[in-house]
């Protein structure tokens, strides 16, 4: 979808003379009337760049085509991805030849810096030990420490066990103490951040 065409500044005389309404009018700059860089005409001249290639004429110079150059925008959600089409849908076969010029997925960089490889190395006995440790001494064995010891993610620790209610209460008080030191600006910024995050799901 997103095609990026680098527009090079070419000398004005080298422009094709096919589309007169898009062409800039050439004005010779006399040397004695040179002014500083921010003059109106210079600024305007700088802005005169070659139009996008898709705006130009096709090779046979015929004017029988429609210029379709939409601004870059996100694809419509009503355009169902080919993978999501049912097996008997006619659009599957129609889109089959579009696959050839699609960019290779493997070459694209990942969103995450390092892909966490899933190991699946913990056994049920490990899980029972995690639970026992966390139940007996929740102050020592926090999620982070357990995750480091068992070489897994803190999310996995949260999935297999819960902390004691006393620890939860203490943690809540700590959070309240921290939040009580926040001023109006920081509090508002945090709230705004939460609201912005909610708006992602509504696609606003």
């Amino acid at each position, binding site marked *: 979808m997103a095609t990026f065409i680098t527009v090079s500044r070419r000398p004005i005389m080298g422009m094709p003379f096919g589309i007169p309404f898009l062409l800039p009018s050439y004005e010779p700059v006399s040397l004695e009337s040179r002014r500083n860089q921010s003059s109106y005409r210079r600024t305007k001249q700088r802005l005169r760049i070659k139009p996008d290639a898709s705006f130009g004429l096709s090779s046979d110079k015929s004017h029988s085509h429609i210029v379709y150059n939409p601004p870059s925008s996100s694809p419509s*959600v009503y355009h169902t991805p080919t993978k999501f089409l049912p097996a008997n849908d006619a659009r599957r076969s129609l889109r089959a030849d579009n696959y050839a010029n699609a960019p290779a997925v493997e070459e694209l960089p990942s969103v995450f810096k390092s892909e966490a490889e899933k190991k699946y190395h913990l056994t049920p006995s490990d899980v029972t030990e995690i639970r026992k440790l966390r139940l007996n001494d929740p102050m020592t064995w926090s999620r982070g420490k357990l995750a480091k010891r068992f070489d897994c993610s803190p999310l996995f620790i949260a999935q297999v066990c819960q902390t004691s209610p006393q620890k939860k209460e203490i943690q809540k008080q700590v959070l309240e103490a921290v939040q009580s030191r926040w001023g109006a600006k920081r509090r508002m910024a945090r709230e705004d951040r939460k609201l912005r995050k909610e708006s992602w799901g509504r696609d606003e």
Partner: protein
Amino acid sequence: MKRLQLQRWSSSALSSRARTDGRLQRQLCSSKRFQSTDATPVQPASEQLAEQQSFPSTTIRRPVRVSKYKLPSPPVQAAHESAKLAALHARLYLPSRLPLETLARCLINPSADRNPQFNNSSFSVLGHDLLTNYATEHLICTYPRLPLSVVFATLYAYVGPKTLAAMAREWGVEHAALPGGEVDPGLLQYKRVDPGTDLSTEPLVGTTRPNEDQKHWRKSINSSVVYDNEFGDPDLAGVPPSELQPEQAQNTKPVTMEQASADFVRSVMGAIYLHAGRAAAKRFFEQHILSRHLDISSLFNFSEPTRDLVRLCARENYEPPVAKIISETGRRSRTPVFVVGIFSGKDKLGEGAGASLPEARARAAVAALKGWYLYSPVEVRVPSTMEEEGAAPWKPVYVDLGEVVS
């Protein structure tokens, strides 16, 4: 300086025909009462009449000699004298088989005239069923994968009371200040709720849901299919008229303008179906309801889009989704833009742009989920097309497994 006495001056300067205090003025003054929408001032007589008009004695109502001031709604004969009614009939391009009398009856709410032979209650019940039936089949056949909550919201947007009231306003239907027999039959007649009444104070009782008094119980979206109405709102259990208490039947509860307008639009639909047939009703539905633009994609709200997408791909046996950066600009600047695509195998499922990588990834997941839910078959055929003459044999439509539960 003496003031100019305009009245006397004008009466001497103007010709006698143009004088305002002529016969015309007197006539206007006297006919002002007829234009008022007030009910008749003779209250005891009207109450007496109301008692006579209770349900059993509906067969011989309105003898010829009853004054129209004593009637709760305009007489049937008045329909042909109303310019408003004829204009409304022409404006809506209603079929000529729908008589003006029926259109006049559509404008009379049960709160104005409780006699079911003269109000629009029966029409509006039929029209409501037709509207929701046509809207539901259109929606489910066009978008077979929509989640239930979105189906409810879409139906509310298409045939909900707010939309129908807006339609009545767009049609130019005005309402009478008070219903009565002398009112122009082209006006919508209903008993209004007193201004300032809080409608949401009293709790809803008599719904079809069991244990309705348990307010803190969780209401699942699937139970709404069984217990609630077509918009997912609590549904009142209907009471047949034979079981109604006599004082209940006598009391006409005032309604809001929105309710009365919605009932009017529904009853027009029902009246078209009864007088002009199924095809005309379907055409009316397509021209007035389906022609309204609704962007269904704006009704979605995902709280965990990435997790839902992982669940969806696992359910449908696709490769697990992977987020990749398609393009980016200004990573070290104040306003960066990242374009992230979500891929499953070699196929792109969705694409989203955002000011941060998590935002772009979440938006891409939302786009992918919407792409799944907003799938629409190429050729949509609704079940009601089978009612037409010489319809092709029915082929089963695509119906999805259901929404992604995570």
